[in-house]
């Protein structure tokens, strides 16, 4: 490689590095602006009615038997027969997944949150806040019509 060609290659690399750094700075500025603007979708805490409404969209063929709400309203676990239908807040949106009810009942609780695991690389785990008022798993008589 001649000195001139090496120089051109270095200039090209520098150009790309500058472009990369510039892009990173621009991204940081746009994300900061988005955070400052506070223009997310309205995403109020869940109540039983809103859980049923959302599940009717996500799982239109499923009947919801009972609803357990996360302590902060940022999620819910609902029983539908032998399945648990889960809603969890992600940013200003909601994510829905389902798992066997028995697996939901035996999910680990750590750091005040019930940790639900799914065999799905798109959402391998979701965690919901548990409180003394809303303990997990819920008491049997109210939530287990099949028990």
């Amino acid at each position, binding site marked *: 490689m001649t000195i001139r060609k090496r120089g051109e290659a270095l200039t090209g690399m520098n150009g*790309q590095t500058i472009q*990369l750094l510039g*892009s*990173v700075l*621009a*991204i940081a500025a*746009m*994300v*900061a*602006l*988005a*955070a*400052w*603007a*506070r*223009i*997310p*979708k309205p995403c109020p805490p869940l109540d039983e009615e809103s859980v049923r409404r959302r599940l009717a*969209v996500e799982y*239109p*063929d499923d009947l919801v038997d009972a609803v357990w709400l996360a302590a902060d309203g940022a999620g819910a676990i609902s029983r539908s027969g032998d399945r648990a239908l889960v809603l*969890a807040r*992600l*940013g*200003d*949106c*909601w*994510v*829905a*997944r389902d798992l066997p009810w028995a697996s939901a009942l035996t999910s680990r609780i750590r750091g005040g949150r019930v940790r639900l695991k*799914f*065999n*799905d*690389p*798109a*959402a*391998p*785990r*979701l965690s919901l806040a548990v409180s003394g008022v809303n303990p997990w798993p819920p008491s049997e008589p109210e939530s287990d019509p099949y028990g």
Partner: protein
Amino acid sequence: MTLDPLKPAFDPVTLAIPIFVLTIIGEIVLSRFGKIKARYEARDTATSLLMGLGSSVAGLITGGAIFAVSLWAYQYRLFDIPMAAWWAWVVIFFLEDLTYYVFHRVAHERRFWWASHVNHHTSQHYNLATALRQTWTGGVAGTWLLWIPLTLLGFPPAMIAIQKGISLVYQYWVHTEAVRRMPAWFEAIFNTPSHHRVHHARNPQYLDSNYAGILIIWDRMFGTFVAERDEEPCRYGIVKNLGDFNILRVAFHEWMAIGQDLARARSLREMAGYLFGPPGWSPDGSRETSKIIKARWAARQAGLSPESPEGTDPTPVAP
């Protein structure tokens, strides 16, 4: 003016980057002051923009090899299409846009290519930043091969690269909720924010529709056009939305899912189905393809039992 048929004189996407930045800033600020409709969430925005940056880096890695294949194919061209002829640009405009339609349809309807394209649809938001949520694995997925026939026909690789760039830049502005409808004549011919909102929606009746790049005429011709209905607002994202904002998950989750499925496949037929069947295909029909989701929705609308919707074959679609 002479144009190099092998090396693009300019890259429309690179030239448009300042416009991307300014318009995203504009969309955020105007929405903040209530002048237009746009929703932004900081982490979602960061994910979209970082995916865009990663896509550029991935393009640097695979772009050279792809361009080399184009140059190799160009040696075997049928015609010498002059890059300076105006008619050549008119013809490539239509042919490239048709190629994009085919690519986009394949990228939605066959899982192997969906795995590469899905990341573009993972945001539950629809704004200009979403437009930049681009693939990292397009080069590996090989969809660029669909453009090789244009090279073999005799269009110079530089011309194809420029037209592809123009198409990408055009598609940027349709990623917005700020524009409700364009004039009727424009909506009839071109891809618009309204048409593309439908494309990004996960409502059953909107799935697998409006694959257009620049011209919506291809969807109208091939039966994939669905109009946006005001009484059915678009819900954005994918059928099963992602559980976090991790960009590695955005880029690779469907590839990982394919890997899991291939590991449990019991025959070559199952492997082929998992790889090249429609997204949601499974040997026992326990998952839902778009076709099944749409049929079940149609059955519910018709008031039939969702368990046995008339005219719906609950068995999976054969790959």
